[in-house]
């Protein structure tokens, strides 16, 4: 999964530069898509909410709009390995305008669950005794 961070890379670009940058991004995306590398991907709206607190009782607007760390969109890639995903990320045209791309392998199982495999097994046995037997 590629997470695109820094959704304000367009600031300070002239309309002409912006149009040229967007054309490059679209061509990049279409090229990946034509090669069968894209499984999913969408931009995210800046208007979101952050939920926290013991029972989810804290709801605030977020992410902080000015943050360079804010995630502005994502792509789920079908890549052979992490190297290929990194090379695809490096070919992203707007890197020169200051965005960063986080490259994260998608897992079949949560690493937190993985760390507690035995606990998970006991939970399964309790939830579905017949299947676990």
């Amino acid at each position, binding site marked *: 999964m590629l997470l695109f961070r820094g959704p304000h890379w*367009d600031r300070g670009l002239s309309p002409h530069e912006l149009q040229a940058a967007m054309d490059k991004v679209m061509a990049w995306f279409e090229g990946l898509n034509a090669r069968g590398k894209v499984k999913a991907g969408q931009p995210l709206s800046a208007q979101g909410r952050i*939920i926290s607190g013991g029972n989810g009782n804290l709801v605030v607007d977020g992410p902080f709009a000015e943050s360079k760390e804010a995630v502005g969109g994502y792509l789920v890639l079908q890549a052979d390995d992490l190297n290929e995903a990194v090379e695809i990320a490096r070919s992203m045209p707007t890197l020169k305008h200051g965005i960063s791309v*986080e490259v994260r392998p998608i897992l079949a199982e949560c690493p937190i669950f993985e760390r507690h495999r035995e606990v998970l097994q006991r939970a399964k046995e309790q939830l579905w005794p017949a299947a676990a037997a």
Partner: protein
Amino acid sequence: MSTSTAKSDYLLLFRGNVWDKGLSPAQLQKVVSDWMAWFERLKEEGKCLGGHPLEDEGKVVSGKQRTVADGPFAESKEAIGGYFYLTVANENEAIEIAKQCPGLEYGSVVEVRPVAEICSIKQHAEEYSSGQLAGATA
């Protein structure tokens, strides 16, 4: 209030990937089974189209030189540990689902983000170019 029945899509980003530290085996067992049951129920209800955990390891690519660095994900409260893709009636429903996240009581944070039809920057670019066009033909 809108009476629209159109479905809208949201991404839930789960932040914090070390919230399991210090939990007792009983607490772990409960949160793991609650989380699995929550995911399965949302899928059965047709509200969650999919979701995945993300590996703690990863890379960050940035800068004009396209530098590749190891991601500092392992111990961060901010790190994104996984996501759900939701299709729900409206934002309130997405928030209500986020509030059900079993990790919340152990310090996990859920970011609820509407999925956009079109990138806001692309939209700006199109507005610019149509504005230019209008200027040229005026």
